[in-house]
């Protein structure tokens, strides 16, 4: 029935359903704009599940991520969610990391090990991060109370402040309100860049939590700054994979059409949700993404496809609902003022 939407992919030399590509693009566009991630943790398994060869899935994904992140970053910048200084430092680490990761995956492909190794790395990361963020959300009140008690003890001189990692040069980021060692920042971005190239992701699903938990950014700034970094790692990833012949351009354009519209919706929704709300939804999403990758690894391909697509579509619905409720509330408040 949906065969009429089949479009011929000239590089992969196979027909593929355009509707699926636009729908995948739209869903990850909403998720990407809202969470500040590229969304490849949904796209790469989804493309692979629907029959795309692994090597093209990664390159095509990175190409559409680049286009989409331009859209989302511009909008986040309008909202004051992008720390340009932090983002610019991220470029150096990310570019080097992406290249190392891309080379590593090519080498693994030659050995015939790329598929399972990439999927196992995905699983560990998605589950690990998701469970940690869920734990962080559930214990936030307890930690806030402990932090207040510690602050009081520090002020009374009962305890000494703990020595932090402060290898010079130290850098101040006024937009995020933090001062941190250059090496911490570089190390974080080098590692996330490597993951980006290796897994074929924008690197965002690890960089966004890293910006919050390791660097100390407010959640909305982590989202915007992460997208700024995704823009550059996506551009570099897109180019380097295309040079290696791994981008299916027609598929990338179709996904980008959906993603650009979705990203606008996702970014606007950030305005109406508090930081911890974004973290909770993010944790749920990546645990579901990890479940789908695990199912795929254990040969439950059809169920895995449903899990990843339903999770992405379900989360999109939640985000769009949050946007609609927030928008209506804001409109009602404005009407009340007049």
């Amino acid at each position, binding site marked *: 029935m949906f065969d009429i939407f089949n479009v011929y992919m*000239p*590089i992969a030399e196979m027909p593929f359903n355009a509707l699926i590509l636009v729908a995948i693009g739209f869903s990850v566009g909403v998720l990407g704009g809202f969470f500040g991630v590229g969304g490849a943790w949904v796209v790469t398994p989804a493309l692979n599940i629907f029959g795309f060869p692994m*090597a093209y899935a990664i390159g095509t994904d990175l*190409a*559409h991520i*680049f*286009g*989409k992140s*331009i*859209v989302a970053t*511009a*909008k986040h910048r*309008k*909202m*004051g969610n992008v720390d340009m200084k932090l983002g610019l430092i991220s470029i150096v*680490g990310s570019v*080097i990391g992406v*290249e*190392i990761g891309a*080379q*590593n995956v*090519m*080498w693994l*492909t*030659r050995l015939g090990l790329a598929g399972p190794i990439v999927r196992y790395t995905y699983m560990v990361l998605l589950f690990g991060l998701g469970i940690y963020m869920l734990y962080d959300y559930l214990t936030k009140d307890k930690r806030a109370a402990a932090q207040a008690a510690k602050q009081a003890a520090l002020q009374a001189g009962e305890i000494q402040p703990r020595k932090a990692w402060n*290898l010079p*040069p130290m850098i101040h980021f006024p937009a995020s309100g933090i001062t941190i060692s250059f*090496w911490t920042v*570089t190390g974080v971005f*080098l590692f996330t860049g490597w993951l980006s190239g290796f897994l074929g992701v924008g690197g965002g699903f690890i960089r966004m939590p890293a910006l919050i938990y390791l660097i100390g950014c407010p*959640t*909305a*700034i982590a989202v915007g700054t992460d997208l700024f970094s995704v823009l550059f790692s996506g*551009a570099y990833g*897109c*180019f*380097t994979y*295309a*040079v*290696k*012949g*791994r*981008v299916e*351009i*027609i598929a*990338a*354009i179709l996904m*980008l*059409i959906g993603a*650009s*519209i979705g*990203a*606008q919706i996702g970014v*606007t929704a*950030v*305005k109406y949700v*508090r*930081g*911890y709300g974004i973290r909770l939804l993010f944790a749920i999403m990546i645990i579901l993404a990890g479940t789908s990758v695990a199912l795929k690894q254990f040969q439950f391909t059809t169920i895995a496809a449903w899990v990843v697509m339903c999770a992405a579509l379900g989360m999109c619905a939640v985000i769009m609902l949050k946007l609609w409720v927030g*928008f209506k509330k804001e409109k009602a408040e404005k009407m009340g003022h007049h």
Partner: protein
Amino acid sequence: MRKSWIMILNFLLLSLSGTLAWAAAEKAQLLEKKVNLANLGGINYFFAKWYNENLWVYALIVTVLMGVVGMLIAFVTDIILKNIGMEVSKIEHHE
């Protein structure tokens, strides 16, 4: 003395990333493939032709096209959202 150690450590950390990139680059390999142009026409032929002839030009086309298409769609969507009242401006950050 402390300054010297900091300089040495900084130098070592800087050289580490370069060494890693160099080591990884030794294993690089591109996908050796030629697309069959026989049944292709129009835009598909254009993309596939550059893919076969020069991957650097193909990569440039892909990268530029992604940026241009993304910006065009964003521009149109922005106008639509503005018209229905979903404008965005600077927000306060609440955790």
